């Protein structure tokens, strides 16, 4: 625990230090966003003043993404690089090194109160012989809480202001307008959750992407895969989950847009639960999908959950 807190503190120290920002600004600000949700935030704040390159696109899985030479080239030319941090982008360090970028690497979770991964998995690791130290046990999916999304947006506005002073008023105004929309979305999400009976608020997804959502909105999520999709769930994990599902009387099971549906279909089949639809966890949908923006994603997820539990 101590180590984890130290880690979070150091992240904050490092990201508070801007460097590489040019005073002069010519042409659109070149921004690299590590994944699609950050791209959406950046576009809402930056508008026409920025040009965004996104590394992990719609329906992409940042946990297992392999960066390409072209990504390094984009990062090399960037003025600002926006990332989630908290070890969400496992590829970040090698890409930064390969790109030799001089851009600021801005971790948008700066200021977020981190939460830990779920205890059942932490205990599982301890049983595996590592009880004496913790392993990156901070949940990185902070964007699944709209309160945190507002922090991301503020951090983006601050980074853009530092890189492009002339556009600062625009960035701040855009951030304020978008934050207002986030506030409205937050109310909608809370109202929808409130309409779900309290004894029906346990659901199942593929991996632990919804810890912050659970913390903020009061739904309980169970998942076989832990906080990263990189490690596959073991048969024992799945069996334990099925047992837990039966005991907890989970109300619905969902596939995620970034993961293989087979595991969830197996759990659905063995527990008698029906797959309630697709939740968007770590990535938006393509433009023609139901969750092509962050706000649409939050609306879609909560509507899908409610629809599966109590009908739409």
């Amino acid at each position, binding site marked *: 625990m101590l*180590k984890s807190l130290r*880690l979070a503190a*150091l*992240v904050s*120290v*490092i*990201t508070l*230090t801007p*460097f*590489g920002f040019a005073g002069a600004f010519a042409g659109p600000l070149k921004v690299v966003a590590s994944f699609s949700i950050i791209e959406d935030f950046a576009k809402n704040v930056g508008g026409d003043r920025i040009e965004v390159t996104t590394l992990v696109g719609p329906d992409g899985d940042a946990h*297992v993404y*392999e*960066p*390409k*030479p*072209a*990504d*390094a*080239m984009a990062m*090399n030319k960037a003025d600002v690089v926006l990332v989630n941090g908290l*070890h969400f982008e496992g590829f*970040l*360090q*090698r*890409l*930064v*090194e*390969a*790109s*030799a*970028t001089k851009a600021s*690497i801005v971790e948008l979770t700066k200021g977020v109160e981190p939460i830990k991964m779920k205890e059942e998995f932490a205990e599982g690791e301890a049983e595996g012989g*590592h009880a*004496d*130290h*913790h*392993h*990156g*046990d901070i949940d990185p999916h902070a964007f699944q809480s709209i309160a945190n999304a507002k922090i991301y947006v503020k951090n983006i506005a601050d980074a853009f202001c530092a890189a492009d002073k002339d556009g600062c008023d625009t960035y701040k105004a855009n951030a304020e307008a978008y934050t207002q929309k986030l506030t409205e979305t937050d109310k909608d999400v809370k109202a929808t959750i409130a309409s779900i009976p309290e004894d029906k608020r346990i659901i199942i997804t593929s991996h632990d992407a919804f810890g912050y959502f659970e913390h903020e909105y009061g739904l309980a999520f169970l998942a076989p895969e832990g906080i990263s999709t990189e490690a596959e769930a073991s048969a024992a994990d799945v069996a334990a989950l099925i047992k837990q599902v039966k005991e907890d009387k989970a109300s619905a099971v969902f596939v995620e847009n970034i993961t*293989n549906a*087979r595991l969830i279909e197996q759990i659905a089949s063995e527990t008698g639960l029906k797959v309630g639809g697709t939740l968007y966890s770590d990535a938006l949908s393509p433009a023609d999908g139901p969750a092509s923006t962050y706000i649409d994603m939050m609306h879609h997820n909560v509507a899908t959950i409610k629809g599966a539990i109590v009908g739409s």
Partner: protein
Amino acid sequence: MFRFFRTVSAAALLTGLSATASLADELTAWRLFISDHGEPVVHVLDALNGNELATFNTKAPAGLYRSDSGKTVFAVQRDGNIVQAISSGISASDHGDHGDLKVEDAKLLDTAIAGTKPVHFVDHGGNVALFFDGEGIARIVSEGDTLAGSPSIREVKTAAPHHGVAIAFGDHVLLTEPNKAKPEELLVGIRVVDAEGARVSDLHSCPDLHGEAASGNLVAIACAKGLLIAQAGEKEPSIEFLPYSDKLPEGKVTMLLGGKGLQYFLGNYGPSAVVLIDPTADDAFRRIELPTRRVHFAVDPVRPKFAYVFTEDGKLHRLDVVSGEIVKSLALTEPYSMDGHWSDPRPRVAVAGDAIFVTDPLKSTLHVIDAASFEKNRDIAIEGKPFNIVAVGGSGETH
């Protein structure tokens, strides 16, 4: 903790933060495994100081291949009709915010996989597929079971003996299809078989198939007119064809390496050029002309931005895989002509931590190049004529 500091290293360096305070229990270890052109022996060197740690006698002169994990080095002995396994003694494990490193003695394992004329070795996800040309059979073993001393060998047969290759993809296996009319000639394509050995797909045409490599979640297989790109699918591996770009001159890839840290492939393209391949890019092929013919090449697993090409004029070239340019060249040896027999002693390249190692078989020497400055910093004398060289190692915490 080390991994965390590496993650933010660019920021830490520029803000003056130091990682050293937390590195008291950190360990770095790299080993070189070197086989000989004529003698059935594998030398194990400590790459950090050049000291010989062990020498293992094999049945015949061996080609060496390391597993992806680096825990095992396989000694493929074509003329000895056997593959022996060596525990490298170095194992790394990832724990999210840091990595652990365990270092033990290297040892030649009792495990051996026998068969006629083994040549191609492919590790995919810890499943090692060894292809025995003399029988047309792939024998697949799990690395974990091999290290434990109890490998169960899964055999997958093809129609005829041929110079083939197999790639294990979970329960499925990608397998070469020989040229039935002329089995001694290059292959016609790839088939996918399931756990029972039953074919689950039509032939994926790949005339003149030779050369395969993995990078991240992609496997590339070189053909006369392009590459087959394979990756895990919903039920079975999916395979797509990536034709060579119209911008490339006549030619083909016959040797491939997979990028580490960045997802790309590096292939030969004719004797005096290489191609950088990003299957996901609009312009997937970037051809880089070399000053003379290529002798050997290697990717840098520590500095993903770089790969190295040794050419017959005795020079080692640093290739920036992001810009697609040779950014430095270093004269190291007397010329080694590519004329003559394909298996004549010629230099090979391996990267171990902060150093690049180049064998100079005719001088019984290893040249050591500082990877940061790209300048030679010392030579190591070595017995005999070094043939294959592989490096394993890394940094991590000890507990």
